[in-house]
């Protein structure tokens, strides 16, 4: 006899027909291959400090004016930086910086090939010449904003320790430029990110955050912090995450939308992982504010906040419950109806993972009025949002009680669900067929199979399922065939197979005992 505990285990299996909730929850897809254009709503990895942009200009107006007319060729620059004339050092660095800050076709590779990077790095340590320091930092920032190879050129010249040191420069424009450069290096990938962390970048960086830090500077810091949180394989070290999180929570209280956006991106990176990673974030109590920001009027804030929350509900039932307790179900309806299809899609994905939970969480979906917008999205949403909505319905019907499934049907899920059987996407079709099968299991328990058959046929579903029996995908046509044979086969289809013409009077009946049975 199973102990009570084992019984619970089995009851759980029974409810979800052998799929456990972890398997139903769908992590953000590990996309190794992407056919689409890179997403426009992703956060920027690296940024160049472009000349005449208000910020760069305002930082050093007088030098800018003084040297506005100075022009040197690349060879002259090389000569100058390698020479001993401090004035020419500045002039050359400044010219190089200007070239690198051009709006169009900055000559990153030419500058790298000219071999002046080691010199520029050296200039970073020239505490005696603040202007030179600044110009070198700016130039290197822009080189580091390029491709991985270009970033590597900066790192391999030993820029990291120099920049980390400059974070504590008494001159704010220098420490700010260093923050920027380090952000670009961190954005290159997990390797440089971790090497920054090992160079102890975090304490001086966090020290820069204070109530008196100007907003523009704070934006740069936030962005660099977000790059320090970014990327998996491997994740940033847990210790670093623990150091950064309290500051992120402070930044989340800010009013500036860029700061909020980048902070939310940071949180979304930290939650994009296994349950213990999620745990580190949610235990800080950050969730209510994140949920609040999902309702922000700014798309640039909503997008990462929603992502972060979407990531958290891929976690355990308890973590998901914390999200629910933070009030997510009050915000999701408006996001499911958001004018941007990508927001609809992310919202539906989030919903699908909540629907993968235990039935008391599913009940909260019903109570909080999530079903009407879900059905609406299934009916009229953009295709990629509809696909997520299908998953939500599928999970709902897998884990929900019979009554909950009945509720779902009464909200009109069938018609749009069946319509999507003509979608041009095999996987979606298969998920719908599985869902229909779940609906029939519920109907069987209520002895209303016939009624469901009627509805499915009336709504044009039967015809579509029949047509799917000729689908080219084996799994799709098998699923369609299975449904037809189980629920829609008319009286019977005689089909006999003949075989064998052996003439024996009767079978023999005999048994020999084997040595020993063990079962």
């Amino acid at each position, binding site marked *: *006899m199973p*102990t*009570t505990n084992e019984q619970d285990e*089995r*009851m759980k*299996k*029974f409810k979800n027909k*052998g799929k456990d909730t972890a398997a139903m929850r769908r992590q953000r897809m590990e996309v*190794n*291959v*992407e*056919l*689409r*254009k*890179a997403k426009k709503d992703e956060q920027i990895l690296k940024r160049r400090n472009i000349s005449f942009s208000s910020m760069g200009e305002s930082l050093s107006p007088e030098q800018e004016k003084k040297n506005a007319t100075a022009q040197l060729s690349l060879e002259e620059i090389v000569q100058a930086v390698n020479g001993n004339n401090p004035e020419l050092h500045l002039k050359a660095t400044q010219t190089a910086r200007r070239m690198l800050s051009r709006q169009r076709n900055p000559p990153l590779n030419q500058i790298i090939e000219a071999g002046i990077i080691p010199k520029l790095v050296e200039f970073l340590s020239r505490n005696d010449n603040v202007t030179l320091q600044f110009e070198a930092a700016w130039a290197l920032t822009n080189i580091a904003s390029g491709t991985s190879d270009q970033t590597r050129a900066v790192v391999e010249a030993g820029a990291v320790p120099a920049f980390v040191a400059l974070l504590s420069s008494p001159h704010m424009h220098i420490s700010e430029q260093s923050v920027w450069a380090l952000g670009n290096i961190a954005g290159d990938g997990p390797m440089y990110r971790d090497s920054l962390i090992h160079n102890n970048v975090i304490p001086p960086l966090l020290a820069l955050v204070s109530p008196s830090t100007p907003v523009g500077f704070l934006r740069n810091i936030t962005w660099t912090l977000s790059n320090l949180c970014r990327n998996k394989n491997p994740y940033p070290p847990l210790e670093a995450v623990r150091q950064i999180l309290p500051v992120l929570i402070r930044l989340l209280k800010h009013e500036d939308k860029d700061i909020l956006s980048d902070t939310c991106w940071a949180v979304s990176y930290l939650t994009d992982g296994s349950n213990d990673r999620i745990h580190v974030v949610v235990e800080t109590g950050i969730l209510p504010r994140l949920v609040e920001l999902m309702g922000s009027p700014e798309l640039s804030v909503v997008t990462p906040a929603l992502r972060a929350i979407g990531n958290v509900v891929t976690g355990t039932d308890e973590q998901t419950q914390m999200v629910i307790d933070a009030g997510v179900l009050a915000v999701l309806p408006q996001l499911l109806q958001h004018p941007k*299809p990508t927001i609809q899609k992310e919202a539906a994905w989030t919903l699908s993972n909540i629907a993968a939970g235990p039935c008391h969480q599913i009940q909260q979906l019903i109570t909080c009025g999530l079903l009407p917008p879900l059905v609406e999205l299934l009916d*009229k949403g953009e*295709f990629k949002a509809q696909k997520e909505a299908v998953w939500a319905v599928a999970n709902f019907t897998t884990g929900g009680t019979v009554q909950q499934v009945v509720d779902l049907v009464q909200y009109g899920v069938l018609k749009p669900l069946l319509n999507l059987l003509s*979608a*041009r996407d*095999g*996987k979606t079709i*298969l998920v719908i067929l599985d869902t229909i099968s779940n609906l029939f299991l519920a109907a069987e328990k209520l002895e209303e199979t016939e009624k469901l058959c*009627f509805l499915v*046929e*009336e*709504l044009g579903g*039967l*015809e579509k399922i029949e047509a799917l029996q000729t*689908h*080219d*995908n084996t799994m799709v046509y098998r699923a369609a065939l299975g449904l037809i*044979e189980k629920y829609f086969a008319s*009286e*019977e*289809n*005689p*089909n*006999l*197979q*003949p*075989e*064998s*013409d*052996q*003439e*024996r*009077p*009767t*079978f*023999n*009946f*005999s*048994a*020999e*005992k*084997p040595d020993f*049975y*063990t*079962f």
Partner: protein
Amino acid sequence: MGRGAQEGIYTAAFRRWLDSAVMELSDANLQTLTEYLKKTLDPDPSIRRPAEKFLESVEGNQNYPLLLLTLLEKSQDNVIKVCASVTFKNYIKRNWRIIEDEPNKICETDRIAIKGNIVHLMLSSPEQIQKQLSDAISIIGREDFPQKWPDLLTEMVNRFQSGDFHVINGVLRTAHSLFKRYRHEFKSNELWTEIKLVLDAFAQPLTNLFKATIELCSTHANDASALKVLFSSLIQIAKLFYSLNFQDLPEFFEDHMETWMTNFHSLLTLDNKLLQTDDEEEAGLLELLKSQICDNAALYAQKYDEEFQPYLPRFVTAIWNLLVTTGQEVKYDLLVSNAIQFLASVCERPHYKHLFEDQNTLTSICEKVIVPNMEFRAADEEAFEDNSEEYIRRDLEGSDIDTRRRAACDLVRGLCKFFEGPVTGIFSGYVNSMLQEYAKNPSVNWKHKDAAIYLVTSLASKAQTQKHGITQANELVNLTEFFVNHIQPDLKSANVNEFPVLKADGIKYIMIFRNQVPKEQLLVSIPLLINHLQAESIVVHTYAAHALERLFTMRGTNNATLITAAEMVPFVEVLLTNLFKALTFPGSSENEYIMKAIMRSFSLLQEAIIPYIPSLIAQLTQKLLAVSKNPSKPHFNHYMFESICLSIRITCKANPAAVGSFEEALFMVFTEILQNDVQEFIPYVFQVMSLLLEMHKNDIPSSYMALFPHLLQPVLWERTGNIPPLVRLLQAYLEKGANTIASAAADKIPGLLGVFQKLIASKANDHQGFYLLNSIIEHMPPESVDQYRKQIFILLFQRLQNSKTTKFIKSFLVFINLYCVKYGALALQEIFDSIQPKMFGMVLEKIIIPEIQKVSGQVEKKICAVGITKILTECPPMMDTEYTKLWIPLLQALIGLFELPEDDTIPDEEHFIDIEDTPGYQTAFSQLAFAGKKEHDPVGQMVNNPKIHLAQSLHKLSTACPGRVPSMLSTSLNAEALQYLQGYLQAASVTLL
């Protein structure tokens, strides 16, 4: 020709070829191969087959495929070239795939050589051979592309620059066969990596080729043969576009959407006299291309709406113009239905509503797109008269998905989503004017009325099922009024053969709107329908039969039939007469609709048919005899047997003694069917016999006993379709005649058990074996099976040991518990332990306790509950041997059986078996609904409520050994189970001592 000589040649050749596993690429070998290929084309199988066999026997040799390729390239004989190419393709199909743990069937050097040459060969061959090689490439590609065939793409793309469109088309066709799987495979990293690779290498060249081809089309606008080649390319390119864009919108195509869509758009509007074909049936290149472009636009509209939005309105206009200007010929059907479906899917989307809402637009769509495509065309008329089966299938059963009428209907429904009022208004005007045209001169203008009826139907029907007809109707259309004014008059006309199409329309109208038309109108229609069973047109009398059948299945209040038997009294005779008469029309002698109507009429009329039974059963047996010569219509046959079963049930319910007269009427035909081994009918015959035998109140008649030995013949049991009805028939024998078998046919018992043994050995049929075994245990006198009991258990233990499945365990549990109920718990324990010491304990511990939760079915669970109760309370070894330690776990399992949900999990490795072999999944078995068996509960009389029974039995046990039961319970039973148990004790009003 002497056979000996032939064989001599084969043997000699065979030896020469087999001497080494490598065939030289020599002229002699090419010559030999040519000879054999020639022979494979010989119509005489005695020459063809050995040659085919021979070729297969040498195909494992190195160089064999290269010999074939050499032949198809160099042979002088065109027939041999084609034959070599087909043989090569089949060889690739059979052998190319490398299956794990099996030998590689093609040696590596051959593989490399084939891949190195085949593209070039394909492209330089004439079309017939090119097609075969192209197929072969795609088979190879499926296995090797891209990793093991990295050059393929570059090789293909390079050919684009050749400028030779024969070559280019070959490449495009091959690419299509390689890439078309992107349309149906599920997203995976592997698949997307491949697609990405293809896109990187292929998308730009394809786009360049697309642009270049379009330019060439305008420079060669006056050259018909050049245009044909160029348009073939464009079709292939458009297909490739669909495949490459199917999984997701690739970056490249998003960046080049302008190029593609602008050109697609202008191709949609393009026309060129030189490309028009005279053929009315076959779609021409222009149609095929435009049709594919509609598909491409529909793909983008459905999946990439956000990106496609700027282009969509242009496509709507172009496609709509295309529809307005496209003719009625059959060759345009696919294009028109694709184009209409595109509009139908777009007009339902809320953000495109504005494209349609203008009144002029709506009117124009209704007038120029919908109405013309609803017209009854010459081709329809032809089908109505000469190919009525096909016509009915399309019109009645909804296999019309690709037809114009259907597409037009879908567009009406789509438009009604937002514009129901205006659309209904526009069409009402049309319907009226068409009806007026008809009224002016019916015999000339009857097609106008047909269109009017079709329009009303499509406008009014919002939702529909086969069983109920229309279930939701447009409230703006007055269906009853139209019925009374325009449908009934046609059906009331004295001449049932006049305007058959309109009659069929009218009958169909009744059929589909049966839930909207009031009952009194349906009652008025019934005699009209019965009358039309006499119409000569197959469509008309078939529709009449079908309409009646549908009306008879309608439900009224209290779930009773809407049309009652009493209301049918005046029509019984004419209905039955006309139905059977309709079966005598040429072309309708095995009409399944009529036979189904007969079945349904019997079922509705019940005892009202009894006076006619002698004549009915005579006609049915006559029909049975006739069709048994060559059974060809499965549905017809099925309904015929159902009708026979109904006749038996209805008659014998009123007069049980009548069973004898049925046996008299039927057994002769049945005997013939069994003797002639009419395989399609044998399962039905067994079911009817079971029904008849179960009707007998007394002992089994001798006529059945005479048949008994024949039922045990192995040959009958070899066919899976026979097994369920035969098992049921044997169960009926056991129920009615166990004593007779024991006394008069005891020598057949081993044969009967042999059937059990045969069934139990199969994972698919073991449950049937248990059905039989359960009946034997339940009904046979114990002494008649005594000597076999031990062997039975040994067989079961062997299956349990060697190949147990969940299904087997479930059946096994039911059986041993039934045995326990019947023979007693002690007997069960004794027989187990006599086979092997401590066996009883092992079965309890390893099978019963852990698996009992899996038993399904009310009766089955009850049997198990009573059996286990007996083991707990009537089996002394459970109380005083080492088995005692199992007592509490067994009790707990029993309480679990009562209280926990059924465990329907299936181990992973059994999923396959689950699909193929579970009861009820056997399509080979044609179960008759009206031969149905009532559920049988072998413990029914003995135990009513098994929980109370458990309580009472425990009470009895506790009085026999006071103190022991409560102490066991209190020390080891878990709290939850104990609570349940106390509930049972309370309900039974007993306390344990």
